[in-house]
């Protein structure tokens, strides 16, 4: 018996959210005598970069170094994961929620005849049956979900467990698979992706601007504050609808759901649909000139004031403590 963790990588490194999934697998194994925690990586990446999965709790990494898997072709990844899952005799698959992870997990639930739970926020309760706590209604509630299958797939939300960093580096074992052509039926023709940017769904700090920022020309302040805080930048839906900011920055019910330790909202009113995307944040700071803005009710800290006066001072104050 073992726990397989599907890990993603970008720009030569394992994603932090995937390392969290490894730590989730490790905590699950410790809790349930679940056996070995094996991380699985697909596509080109160096052994040194993969060894870090050990520090997060994996006892070894299996690597399918097939260049055809560099692009995240959903069916091909699902097929590869299913093959390795069966090879190692796993009974649980853990992965981190992401655009690829979700799509792959869904196909695997059918392939592996497994009970799948998404948006998992805590370790399963196995005292009677197998109960998993997951986030529902876009963060407005939780559901305790009982899994009635021998095989389980858990798609884990950011911050579900603490990231472990103190394990020994893991050895990397190469696996070669044969993946049938039909799994490459959908072809990725090109990718258009920001390089070297902190990505919104994975960020620990997010600075977001709303319509109160008045126009795209004023985003310099948001970006500067984000840079000082090591943060990703986000925005409200109207801001991306009007085209002030790219669509992938849109946070909320119909956009990206974030779960940072700190979410800083500037000139955003705090409509319920925006809050739905940020309610898993640990701390929320709101800057708004309207003391009645609904966002203050969801905030931990706030400043009632004009963003154009407050932001420059805030940037200086953050610089000053560094």
């Amino acid at each position, binding site marked *: 018996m073992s726990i397989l963790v599907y890990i993603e990588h970008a720009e030569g490194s394992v994603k932090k959210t995937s390392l969290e999934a490894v730590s989730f697998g490790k905590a699950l194994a410790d809790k349930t005598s679940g056996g070995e925690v094996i991380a699985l990586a697909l596509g080109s990446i160096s052994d040194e970069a993969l060894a870090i999965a050990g520090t997060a709790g994996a006892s070894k990494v299996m690597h399918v170094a097939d260049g055809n898997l560099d*692009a*995240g072709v*959903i*069916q091909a990844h*699902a097929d590869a994961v299913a093959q390795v899952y069966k090879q190692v005799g796993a009974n649980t698959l853990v992965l981190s929620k992401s*655009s690829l992870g*979700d*799509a*792959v*997990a*869904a*196909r695997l*639930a*059918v392939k592996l005849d497994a*009970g*799948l739970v*998404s*948006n998992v926020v805590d370790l399963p309760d196995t005292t009677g049956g197998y109960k998993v*706590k997951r986030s*529902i*209604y*876009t963060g*407005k*509630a*939780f*559901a*305790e*979900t*009982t*899994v*009635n299958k021998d095989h389980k797939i858990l798609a884990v939300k950011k911050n579900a467990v603490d990231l472990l960093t103190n394990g020994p580096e893991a050895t990397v074992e190469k696996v070669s698979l044969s993946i049938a052509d039909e799994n490459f*039926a*959908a*072809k990725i*023709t090109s990718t258009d992706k*920001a390089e070297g940017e902190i990505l919104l769904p994975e960020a620990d*700090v997010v600075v977001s601007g709303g319509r109160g920022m008045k126009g795209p020309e004023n985003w310099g302040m948001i970006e500067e504050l984000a840079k000082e805080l090591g943060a990703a930048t986000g925005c409200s839906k109207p801001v991306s609808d009007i085209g002030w900011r790219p*669509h*992938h920055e849109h946070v909320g*019910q*119909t956009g990206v759901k974030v779960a940072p330790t*700190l979410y800083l909202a500037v000139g955003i009113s705090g409509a*319920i*649909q925006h809050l739905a995307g940020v*309610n898993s944040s*640990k*701390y929320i*700071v*709101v800057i708004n000139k309207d003391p009645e803005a609904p966002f*203050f*009710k969801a905030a*931990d*800290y*706030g*400043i*009632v004031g*004009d963003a154009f*006066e407050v932001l420059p001072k805030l940037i200086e*104050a953050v610089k*000053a403590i560094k």
Partner: protein
Amino acid sequence: MKILVCITHVPDTTSKIQFTDNDTKFDKSGVQFIIGPYDDYALARAVELKDALGASLTVLNVGEADTEPTLRKALAIGADDAIRVNAFPTDALFVARQIAAIAKENSYDLILMGRESIDFNGGMVHGMVGELLGMPSISPVMKLDVEGETVKMAREIEGGKEYLEAKLPLIAGCQEPIAEWKIPNMRGIMSARTKPLNVVEAVDSEVATDVTAFKLPPAKGSVKLVDKDNVEELVKLLKNEAKVL
């Protein structure tokens, strides 16, 4: 060409989420139900494709009788006919099996739905249907064009997008900005009343997962306000109290 759009019947985005029966049931009192916002994007794009390509457009919901007004709304927006699989949608795999059974019977070329429902947010049904039918399933799709047998798509990935091509038939989980939400007009609403809405029984399906209890998050404490002329104080609080800097 035959298009199927699967829609969810979900609480309006402004609904207060509450539970009854000892936290085992969703409390529907006072809640407005709508077409899931992501499904609404899928439907809007499907109506555009129907008009452009002369396709037929069926909408499908797995749900009990109270979801019919939501299906009628989809008919008013532009679907030709509707199917309701008469069953409570217990979990994603159950719903996927129902959709796959209907799809097998009717051989749709394109199956669209939202990237996720806004009640359970699983985002899994399209992938499961894809696997059950042996078709590509692409999600979240923000652009979708059909050129002959080829579908060209843009899919959102962390920090950007990915462009894809695949042949019909296929399944896509949709999100904005694939199309603009459509509001039904008077003519649509009138004609929706007489469009066919067929009710079929569910195919057998085991329950792989089921919800045994609901819970609300703890209430948020009140906000600590810092004076706008004392911004340094905020940074101090974040550093020393919240310990996030």
